[in-house]
């Protein structure tokens, strides 16, 4: 690992974040809509309007607002939400864990199953098992998430009543800590429907990627050799084939995690899951600039970081790819 390369990549990351933060700052202010719209009411007076503008810091010139925002950002201060009148960081910390749980849980299952079935599909290429499996994968991958979500709700929640339909806990009950939440069966009941919906969507990528990589690998001479040596089917499949074919899947996973953190808006809405996607949508519609900026920035930072991880992973896992521009 080349340290200069690492430093340069970190420098790039910071630059990208600054660009993102700047774009976010201006995009929300140029967007039609007004944060004061949420307060319009017959008893809303002109003095109140001015007072709110002052409170929100919107009475200052745009460039001044920008420098204040940047200065705060450098100190790790994301500002105060217009809508909730509370610090953006603390609002996000309320819901970020839920988004991460849903994402990690779904990712692990989707990738484990995806890789497994990818291997099997490649091995049994041309069989009925593969044909049906492949069609099913394409269907789940292209089905709209809200539709899958509603169908799952209709069946498992409203028809059979096996699983709860929304939220992270039963009405009026609460977990004593995050640990308590993660170790209680109750939480997984609430998690299962949103997670299944997400898994349905996520599983396609690792599965198809694994299958095509595996087909390449299975044609290689060393696999032929292994077959001739009379090694067991599963040993060849997993030890010789899958290990070599899994590389691109792992990097796809790193990037995929980055993208999924912000992309759960639909699932979070369908299942009333208290996560950052819902927060983001509300913040944007209410023109709550600080909250929307903060949430987007966290998501962007996460994505940029996961891209960085993917790059590093590639270098680590495949020595053929040398870090630092292939000199």
């Amino acid at each position: 690992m080349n340290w200069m390369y690492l430093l340069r990549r970190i420098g790039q990351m910071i630059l990208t974040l600054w660009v993102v933060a700047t774009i976010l700052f201006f995009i929300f202010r140029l967007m039609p809509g007004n944060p004061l719209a949420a307060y319009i009411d017959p008893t809303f007076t002109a003095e109140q309007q001015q007072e709110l503008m002052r409170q929100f810091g919107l009475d200052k010139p745009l460039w001044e607002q920008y420098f204040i925002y940047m200065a705060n950002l450098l100190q790790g201060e994301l500002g105060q939400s217009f809508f909730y009148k509370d610090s953006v960081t603390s609002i996000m910390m309320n819901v970020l864990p839920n988004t991460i749980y849903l994402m990690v849980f779904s990712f692990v299952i989707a990738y484990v199953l995806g890789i497994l079935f990818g291997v099997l599909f490649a091995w049994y290429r041309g069989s009925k098992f593969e044909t049906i499996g492949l069609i099913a994968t394409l269907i789940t991958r292209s089905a709209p998430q809200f539709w899958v979500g509603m169908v799952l709700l209709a069946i498992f929640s409203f028809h059979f009543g096996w699983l709860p339909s929304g939220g992270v806990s039963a009405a009026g009950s609460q977990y004593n800590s995050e640990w308590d939440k993660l170790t209680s069966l109750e939480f997984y009941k609430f998690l299962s429907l949103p997670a299944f919906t997400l898994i349905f969507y996520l599983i396609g990528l690792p599965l198809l990627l694994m299958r095509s990589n595996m087909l390449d690998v299975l044609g290689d001479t060393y696999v032929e050799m292994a077959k001739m040596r009379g090694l067991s089917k599963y040993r060849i499949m997993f030890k010789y084939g899958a290990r070599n074919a899994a590389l691109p899947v792992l990097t796809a996973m790193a990037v995929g995690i980055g993208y999924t953190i912000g992309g759960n808006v639909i699932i979070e809405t369908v299942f009333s899951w208290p996560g950052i996607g819902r927060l983001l949508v509300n913040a944007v519609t209410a023109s709550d600039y600080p909250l929307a900026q903060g949430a987007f920035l966290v998501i962007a930072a996460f994505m940029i970081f996961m891209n960085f991880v993917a790059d590093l992973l590639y270098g680590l896992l495949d020595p053929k790819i040398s870090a630092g521009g292939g000199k």
Partner: protein
Amino acid sequence: MMKRKWLFWFGLAVLLTVVISACSNEEVKEDVVKEENVVVDVDPTRYLDPISILSRPQSAAPDEYETAILIRDALIELGAETEVQTMPWEQLADIVWYERDQWQMTGWQMAARPERLDPDEFTYNLFHSQGMVDGYNFMGYNNPEYDALAEAQRVEVNQDVRADLIKQAQQLIADDAVYHFTVHPDINIVYNKDVFDEGTITDMTGMGARNFWTYVNAEPSGDQTDIILNSADNVQAVNPFYISGSTDSWITELIWDRVMRMNDKGLPEAWAAESVKWVDDTTVSVVLRDGMTFHDGNPVTAEDVKFSFEAPKTGEVPMYQPFVEYIEEIEVLNDLELVFHLSQPWAAFETASLAKLNIVPKHIWEPILTDLQDSPENAESFQEDVPVGSGPYKFDALRFQEEVVLEANEEHFNAPKFDRWIVRIIPNMEAALGMIQNGEINFLATYTGDAELLNTRVEEAGNLEMVTSVDLGFRFFAVNQRLEPFNNLAFRKALQAVIDKQLITQIVWKGFATPADSVIAPTLEFWKNEGIETPTGGIAEARNILSEAGFAWDEDGKLLKPE
């Protein structure tokens, strides 16, 4: 080559247009009327600019959008070129509110709130010319006669005389065609009969079954002692000094007591007070109930009440300022008695002030407000960890984007019959409908989906009951009186004639609404003017009104302005 050819034709076209328009200006001094106001050789300046109706998109507000389409079609039939322009509410409100000469017509709505049971807010704040520049009179309605009525009803303490003024104001709004009312929607509230004793649900006038009285007086019919209801909106804050979202107001109503409350008939009645007496037109004496305590155990005293009503005057509680505007002085006589001195007679004082302000504990909020004096923030941004009031429910927990849990205050003089009140935040309406069926919630407090579907589901399920009431709030289209053609009364009257409320009620609302003709809902019998007359004759009457006012049509049926 191509470019030059194109330039030639363009130049020729411009030349011809100039010549033709010059001819018509010279020759046609007066339009030639063929028959029934049909004009040939029209002066081009007489054509109307296309009319644009603002509406939220169909996905967000199907009723508003569909109504806008019906109105558009009627205007087109009348010969006025019209289009519907959709945009999200935030953007629409931004234009209507802050760019007051940039829009012609817009869909809008007023929601039901307990203090709106008194007609003052709708009568005064919506239409008084004071609000033309930056208040709620965004239509630019300016009629001194109306202003006088609105002011008079505000200071008239004799409610019978006042009702007469309110009725005159309603007729004037109709005569001047200020708002184009469509409907009062139905409020459909569904509850589970296995959980609630049917006879104990209160249907409050104009507010429906989802109200304070249901939450405190409903009795359990089985073992379930939690009221579990839904809301689609996040809770913004649980703060007695901050008027935030509507879900927040359901919560603050239950945690904090008020001197008076709006009863199920829509009239203010003494609540935390033993009695409220008008000594004269500007003096009100209040005696508090004995033995009330805050949730932290401290007694509720006259000093707390005085503090609660004076706090808005410190500048730290801006949203409540309008509700204490005419309170000049509050005199505390002893622990339980106090006297309000008003600066002028104020007819809506009981509803808009005594039944509106929350009684907060002085010992908690006084130091907070003092601290806030030196900070740029005000009381609205202060969130207590555990909000303390004296109301029938105590705060238990707020789980962000998930739920708020309140516990019954058994010490209260009107202690609830249920143990807990839990509001679940459910943004997915279809899921909320499923939840009331499978028992995850037992009170469907808000439902913005298809009312017909809801009705069917309730009928199918044996254990559900739907309470349908007429909303105090209403839907309407506002027109900008600063701009053509809406600055012309005849055009507004013609618009009244072509808006078919029966059709809108049946087609758009599938019958789950009541046609509206005033800011006062028909259920508020005391205030409602039953005899409001507006043109309803459709296209034919509209054409007559327009003709009489000098409007005309060209040969293609396009509407022309008066000369």
